[in-house]
């Protein structure tokens, strides 16, 4: 099972197991990562599951779709490696992924 590391804004580190074909957002919720709000439940509709993908991992995770990029307009402190966690599918290639979560998801 791939492992994902979430580093929260206060530097709390959570390394957790991620189910294949689930999303990074679902993995965060299952593991009680409070800085992922996921207001819309994973529909790419609210921009409250923002993560900053570690720069080394960013090329592997890839860039947001046009729809996701539109939703990022409603997020804050968006960086070139920022993604919505609900739009990142967990695959074997993401074993060891590191993402940072923001201090604020708009609420």
């Amino acid at each position, binding site marked *: 099972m791939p492992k994902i590391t979430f580093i929260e804004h206060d530097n709390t580190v959570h390394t957790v197991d991620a189910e294949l074909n689930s999303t990074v957002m679902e993995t965060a919720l299952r593991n009680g990562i409070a800085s992922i709000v996921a207001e819309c439940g994973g529909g790419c*509709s*609210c921009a409250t599951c923002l993560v900053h993908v570690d720069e080394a991992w960013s090329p592997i995770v890839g860039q947001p779709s046009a729809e996701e990029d*539109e939703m990022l*307009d409603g997020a*804050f402190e968006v960086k070139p490696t920022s993604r919505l966690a609900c739009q990142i599918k967990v695959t074997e290639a993401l074993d060891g992924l590191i993402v940072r979560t923001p201090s604020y998801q*708009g609420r």
Partner: protein
Amino acid sequence: MSETIKTDVLIIGAGPVGLFAVFELGLLDIKAHLVDILDKAGGQCAELYPEKPIYDIPGIPYITGHGLTDALMQQIKPFNPTLHLGEMVTTLEKLGDAHFRVGTTGDKIFETKCVVIAAGGGSFQPKRPPIAGIEPYEQKSVFYAVRKIDAFRDKRLLIVGGGDSALDWTLNLQPVAKRLTLLHRRDEFRGAPDSVNKMRALVAEGKMDLKIGQVSALEGADGALSAVTVKGNDGSAARVELDAMLPFFGLTMKLGPVADWGLKLEDELIPVDTAAFETSVPGLFAIGDINTYPGKLKLILSGFHEAALMAQKAYHYVYPEKRLVFQYTTSSTSLQKKLGVA
């Protein structure tokens, strides 16, 4: 002068569950009014995912948020509910048995026998940007909505965002502003193409400015902004002088005034019994995503079930002297008359 409206039931929230509550109450001859902070019915279905698919409405293999809202509006039409949109319920007092007084931001007072809180994740309110020290400027020189265009006449304005709200207000305020700058994090806009074209034309004619980047710091005193620092995507920083800033980052759900009504909340949810989805206050119900009980699932279908059971109990408050006879819409002529099909 407040307007007073008398009704049997006041429903707070016009999302799918609040709308279906009108149906279940209507079958029992209970008249309902609905209040919602959004300017349209549908709640999250309308605001968050109007075009997104929903696959778990019983008997409907596939429907969009918008489609479900339209279908529910059609279903409750026979009961002529009154929708009070663009208003938020702020106050709720219990005056006696089956007697509540409820006030809204629209300066309306409802005198009602029961209240049904169907407020989902709370009320939709503008997202506030996490810029350090923004609070003292809010409602003084930082605004999340435009009430009077004239308030911005001859001012230097900064509008932030890339959606329809940001573009619409850019086009509406540009003629009155002394100078208007639109700031967005990227050079692509998700608003209506026509608005984008009009905005680009104004920029080309030198009538307004467009900047790409994000606000990183504020300058000003006593609630009056004087300038902001804009950080470009290349790391550059620019200073923009202004009199007012209008950020449009969309809406988020906040629990809001529900927290002030004396209910004991659990994790911002309202505990209810599972016989009637009533709170600790008799006659005050909570249905849909906003309630909690052992085994609760935040599904629209659970909210529909809760609405049906709530209505049975509400009947006893509205018609204390009458006995309720359970009937099916398939076979009952009296129910079919109410639905206008018999």
